[in-house]
């Protein structure tokens, strides 16, 4: 028997956003004369879905279909300031800014609709399909297109809004480290199952089961993208990656994708994910941010699974076959722990 299976777990939390300079982001929302909205940002979409999630936030807040919103980013002449796409801040910070801007634009839109329908704006509601009607009287209705036309050509109103979100900076106490580093936290727990070859030290991923709590999942498909891809990156960090394979000696650094190791499509394993949603009080519709924390529990869960499989602790990343093999040899062979 040279191959041993083992399971390990890890649980983590992750702060959303940065405690730097107030970590602000801004957004502008405006309608064209036919009631189609543009969100102007300077925020970056690196693939995480910034454009898509802010589009949904804007549509929900305005009360219009998502197809009626387009997010334009990032142009320093048209998009207002944003700190940037990092620190799991996009959904939370930019989302809040877009929500504030959309709320302001919605206010104007409802005022304009009220004027057309000759009712009080407070009595109006949106149906999410492009219409505004009197609450309880759906037949007294006007389309957002007609409202936009009236606002532009008749009433002289701009259906637009500005938004900023800022968390006032918290000083750090030099002695105690007392501070407010973040306003909300995401959570996760992950179980990794591995198979370890005790003659070569090779570790193969067998499966992962996880639970991620990330506030409101604004778009479950985008969340799934982050969690699946992020867990893959966690496996990669745990077992493969380093630009300095002999750290701290700066030698034999990889120069290409053959030498820089990342798991290939033949190395991936099934990953069964549960998403928990405990809304953040200050998140846009309760959202936190799944972007960074998704990788974090994987690294220790894999290390702990290797211990369970062969009884060695590798506290030095990445956990290469060499490190596993050296440890197994040092303890005189694999010592499988009780199967979990």
């Amino acid at each position, binding site marked *: 028997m040279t191959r041993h299976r083992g399971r390990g777990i890890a649980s983590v939390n992750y*702060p959303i956003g940065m405690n730097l300079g107030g970590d602000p982001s801004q957004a502008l929302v405006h309608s064209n004369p036919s009631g189609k909205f543009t969100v102007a940002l300077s925020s970056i979409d690196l693939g995480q879905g910034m454009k898509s999630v802010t589009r949904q936030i804007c549509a929900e807040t305005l009360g219009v*279909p998502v197809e009626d919103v387009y*997010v334009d980013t990032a142009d320093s002449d048209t998009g207002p300031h944003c700190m940037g796409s990092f620190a799991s801040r996009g959904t939370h910070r930019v989302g809040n800014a877009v929500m504030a801007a959309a709320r302001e634009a919605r206010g104007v839109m409802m005022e304009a609709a009220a004027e057309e329908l000759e009712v009080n704006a407070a009595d109006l509601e949106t149906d999410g399909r492009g219409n505004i009607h009197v609450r309880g009287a759906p037949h007294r209705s006007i389309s957002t297109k007609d409202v936009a036309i009236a606002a532009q050509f008749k009433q002289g109103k701009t259906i637009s809004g500005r938004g900023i979100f800022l968390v006032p900076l918290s000083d*750090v106490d*030099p002695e105690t480290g007392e501070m*407010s580093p973040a306003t909300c936290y995401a959570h996760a727990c992950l179980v990794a199952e591995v198979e370890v070859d005790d003659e070569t030290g090779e570790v193969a991923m067998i499966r992962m*089961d996880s639970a991620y709590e990330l506030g409101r999942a604004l778009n479950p498909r985008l969340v799934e993208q982050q969690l699946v891809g992020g867990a893959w990156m966690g496996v990669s960090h745990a077992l493969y990656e380093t630009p300095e394979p002999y750290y701290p000696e700066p030698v034999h650094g990889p120069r290409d994708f053959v030498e820089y190791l990342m798991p290939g499509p033949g190395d991936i394993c099934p990953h069964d994910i*549960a998403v928990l949603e405990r809304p953040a009080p200050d998140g846009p519709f309760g959202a936190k941010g799944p972007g960074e924390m998704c990788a974090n529990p994987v690294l220790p869960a894999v290390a702990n699974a290797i211990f369970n499989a062969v009884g060695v*602790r590798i506290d*030095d990343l990445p956990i290469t076959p060499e490190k596993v093999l050296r440890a197994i040899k040092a303890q005189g062979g694999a010592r499988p722990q009780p199967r979990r």
Partner: protein
Amino acid sequence: MLELRKDLFADERDDNLKEIGKGTQRQDMLGHVTGTSPYFDDHKLQGMLHLKVVRSTHAHARLRRIDTSEAERSQGVRRVIRASDVPRNLNTLLSLINFGKDDEPSLAVDKVRYKGEPVVAIVADSPREAYEAIAKVKIDYEPLPAVFDVEEALKPGAPVVNEVYPKNTFTYHETYDHQQLRFGDADRALATADHVLEQRYQMSPIEHAPTETNGSIAAPDTNGRYIVYTSTQALFFSVDTCAKILDVPSNTFHFIGGTVGGGFGGKVDTLTEPLCILGAMLTGRPVRYVFGREEEMQYGPPRGAERIYIKDGVMRDGRIVARKVRAYFDSGAYTRLSSYAAVKCAAHLPGPYTIPNVYGDVYCVFTNRTPATAMRGFGVTAMDFAIECQMDKLAHLVGMDPMEFRILNAYRDGDMKAHRREAKNTALIECVQVAAEKAKWPIRDEFKRMSSRKDGGGARAAVTPTPREAHAPPAAPAQQRTAYDRAPAATREPPPPPPPPAQPPSPPPSAPSHGATRFSSVFGTRRR
């Protein structure tokens, strides 16, 4: 496969929204599958030149002489850019929010501090001609002793990597060589703990390896402005960094980006834009500066390595009573963003657990390697690795199931965290329970019944008396509290009311515009 556990925390959520919660197609998907999403490099401008840099071949060396005369005469070369051509050739990224001292030149001046540091830039008609000119640049180096290990760098007599920080550590609060966290009396608790476990953990550097490498294209635009297509992750960060280095008003630039081929933190540092724009300024032509893959892997900033020592005290019943952490962030030759990672890391201690005595010292250390920067999980990933390996060992030590051990120690609503803020909106216990269920990992009923929303606070909300250390200054500065964090019960004024659920506060009326406000020398805007 993804399952939404709508049964949990249902009372805290409104699930009847129209757009939120739907798996709507990405706005950019059609662009992606048709190859029409516009990345920075998809702009081809007439007469475009190509910029390549000459990189240091030494990890630490004095620059005795740089001779570019032959390179300047090389075929196709439009301009050789030297350090003296850079208007303000010293910067640090977070200087925009007044955190840290300028410590990094765009082109090395009298010393190189890591292998691969840019020394000279060549702007030529073609990449080939730029490479040919690079071979003709003669640099006379005087090699200096280099240091690559974070703990070696802290020893007396270690080579000074960066003269701005002569102790090889970033300076916190204008005084300290590290960021510390003190909560309770860890030493005393360790002395009475049933078991004490001290371990060392080492995180590797990690390369972001986005499929699109770092790069930018800069071109003279109408009316004296410059248009810049960029892969940056932070548009205005890059705009303002370039404005500072090139010493021109920020509205000189029209930056366009927003569609980036992966970043993961590796495109925050504004690596290519300043020299690319300078090339366009000096030649009057569009200039393209794109990293090759080897440059990206070896000289593009990685996630820095971290070395972490953890010493825990645990009781036989599984309660962790003390956690003492010493961590070293390997920042490489310059600060970039590692200074902030250390603060974020200190705030993250002791992980998502309620431990009454926590002690942390986190150092940002300079070594002669490629400067590190942010990466997915910045400041936290390595600490989570260390903490969670440690948790597994502690559970093993006291003979507890590792799931139950985590549930037992998990933080709950109302608990006091080590950075002295009340834990709220927690959900670690539920995550462990659901993961156990999914993985068919048996845990006992009493652990299945536990909840993040029950049994927190009370004694767990107390701030344990914390001994002052000899070097402590007379008084700690007043604490800025946000609307979202309640002050610890033991201190000062009553907490502000919590915000209503799912309603962000309205923006403050006079929010500072970027760069307009003076920030504290310690850590950004200070409001008392």
